[in-house]
């Protein structure tokens, strides 16, 4: 009895599925012009990292409200937001699969974490769905699917050029201190290469445990080694502030040991917490909230009008430019139904009006070509800010240049 029931139910379900599959293209075909283009956004909006996904979400909505209508014409975009809860590849892969098979999205975007994006890559390939990376920084990621295009940066871009700049600016001996996780290893390797190629010497490389309550002993060791510069990469957030306080307290600055790093060391949204402790720190990054470019002033005005005192950082800009590329692709392909045409459009993306300056996608690698700015933390009206003062113009990902596919 049970078996019969099951068989009958199964037969019904199969029939329903076939009917649905046949009907689906017709419904889609008929209503394509009126239906919004769906963009599945995957980022973290809960837990320890909730603020990062929140910035990305705010930036995407800001773009859709103010900039998108002029580009999109008759088309509209619907964001479908999903929370991957952190660096959590299994969850991210499941969310991407659901977005593609059930919600039938035209794009997967957000893509905040490298491990999550790496897990999603095969899903994008199988589902022929373009993936727009708005934050993940792992160099190899864009090689994992022909449908991935990056609008953030690779850590290699900023850390390599930090090394080049430091060696050219009378820092001969560097001490490298990174957190022992994958981005930390990237930062370490990229800085090491850039610094030694330009004539510097790395006297010691140390990896700190990721759950680290106290930076003092690590910094005491740096103090004793007495290098010209300390290159540091940590996961940012609360750790960034604790690190900066320990750096100030131990008196490394007074000993003439310069603190240098990628932009994550002095995140625009963390700087107020760090206060004067961060003054004089040199970092390299593709964006500074304090930059005076007209496009950035425009962005700042829009953001502050919409969200008041809420601070933003580079996450907002990766998202902003990614949304610009999505909107442009939707307009160019008349609705983004042909994913290969969409990828072609994304590969050719170019703008000189990004808040970070001129931005271009390398059509060969689908990775970003952009300026890397060297910045110094300076106090402006009592508030520390990342002030850009030197530029490496239109640089490609140094890792890909040295590791051709």
């Amino acid at each position, binding site marked *: 009895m049970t078996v019969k029931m099951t068989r009958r139910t199964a037969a019904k379900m199969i029939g329903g599925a076939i009917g649905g599959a046949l009907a689906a293209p017709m419904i889609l075909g008929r209503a394509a012009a009126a239906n919004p283009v769906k963009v599945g956004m995957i980022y973290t909006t809960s837990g320890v990292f909730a603020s990062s996904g929140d910035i990305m979400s705010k930036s995407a909505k800001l773009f859709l409200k103010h900039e998108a209508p002029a580009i999109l014409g008759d088309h509209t975009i619907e964001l479908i937001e999903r929370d991957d809860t952190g660096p959590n590849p299994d969850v991210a892969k499941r969310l991407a699969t659901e977005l593609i098979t059930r919600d039938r999205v035209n794009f997967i975007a957000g893509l905040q974490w490298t491990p999550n994006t790496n897990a999603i890559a095969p899903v994008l390939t199988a589902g022929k769905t373009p993936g727009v990376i708005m934050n993940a920084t792992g160099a190899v990621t864009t090689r994992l699917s022909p449908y991935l295009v990056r609008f953030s940066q690779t850590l290699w871009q900023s850390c390599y050029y930090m090394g080049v700049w430091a060696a050219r600016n009378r820092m001969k001996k560097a001490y490298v201190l990174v957190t022992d996780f994958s981005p930390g290893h990237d930062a370490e390797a990229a800085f090491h290469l850039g610094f030694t190629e330009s004539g510097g010497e790395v006297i010691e490389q140390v990896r700190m445990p990721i*759950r680290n309550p106290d930076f003092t002993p690590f910094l005491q060791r740096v103090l004793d080694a007495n290098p010209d510069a300390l290159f540091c990469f940590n996961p940012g957030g609360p750790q960034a502030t604790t690190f900066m306080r320990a750096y100030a307290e131990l008196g490394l600055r007074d000993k003439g040991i310069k603190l240098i790093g990628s932009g994550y060391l002095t995140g625009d949204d963390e700087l107020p917490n760090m206060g004067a402790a961060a003054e004089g720190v040199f970092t390299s990054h593709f964006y500074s909230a304090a930059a005076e470019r007209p496009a950035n002033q425009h962005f700042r005005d829009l953001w502050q009008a919409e969200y008041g005192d809420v601070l933003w950082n580079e996450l907002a800009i990766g998202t902003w430019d990614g949304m610009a590329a999505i909107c442009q692709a939707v307009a160019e392909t008349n609705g983004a139904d042909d994913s290969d045409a969409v990828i072609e459009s994304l590969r050719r993306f170019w703008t000189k009006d990004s808040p970070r300056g001129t931005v271009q996608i390398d059509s060969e690698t689908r990775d970003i070509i952009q300026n890397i700015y060297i910045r110094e933390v300076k106090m402006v009206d009592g508030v520390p800010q990342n002030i850009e003062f030197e530029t490496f113009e239109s640089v490609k990902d140094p890792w890909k240049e040295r590791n051709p596919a």
Partner: protein
Amino acid sequence: MDIVLSILIHSVAFTALLYLISVGLSVTMGLMGFVNLAHGVFAMVGGYVTATLITAVHLPWWAAIALTPFIVSGIGVVVEKVLYSRLYGKAELDQVLFSIGLLFVASAVAQELYGPLLIQIPMPASLLEPIQVLGVSTSSYKLVLVAVGASVALAVLYALERTTLGAMIRAAVENRTMAEGLGLNTSLLFSGTFALGTGLAALGGAIGAELFPITPAYGFVYLVYFMIVVAIAGLGTVRGAFIASFLVALISTISAYFLPEYGTIVLFAGVFLLLLVRPQGLFGRVS
């Protein structure tokens, strides 16, 4: 010599913070046999209360720090009466599940009220200036931390070992049935001890915010350190909690300095070995 001195000075500051937060956990777990994984929540609440007192009520840092333990103790008493007391004498799994649940709830409430980012506790700038102590560069903030930790350690030790109230608490830890048989109101004693433990944790959380930043994830992130202190010390021992805090601080500082790549491994392996040899901790009694 310089190295020895600087390691000692940095360890002592870390010790003070660990001790302030963990001593209450050691005593309440010893006294009530309650596996309270949510202890760090009260340190976190201490941080948020202090930040609110400074930014919204405009109290000076010192006053806010001094007032916070009393406010959080009050919260602690209510939480103990309403929630914890229901699980006394229940299975350990129930207690673990309850306190982990409380940890999640507290974390979510903190995020709702204060947002996901860390909360800064504005401190007098003079405390953050680097100063030289015996040739080692540190900050006056750390000296304050050490002074407060040391005074609390002495006060708690005196109260437990030299006063009648302390004798009652020790008696109840030792043998609860006998203590009740002699007419001690253990329920009241429990509430009082819980209040003291949460108050000290709040003080530690508030004053230690520069080392352990206040975020909604606080209770999870630092739980392992508080548990390690209690595990090394053994349950219900104030002196043990102090020595265990110092050991943890010293081992993490020394290993981070000399073996930076293996910093946490040394500490965790040490705890692992210790618990193999003495599952009751250094100063715990076998029950």
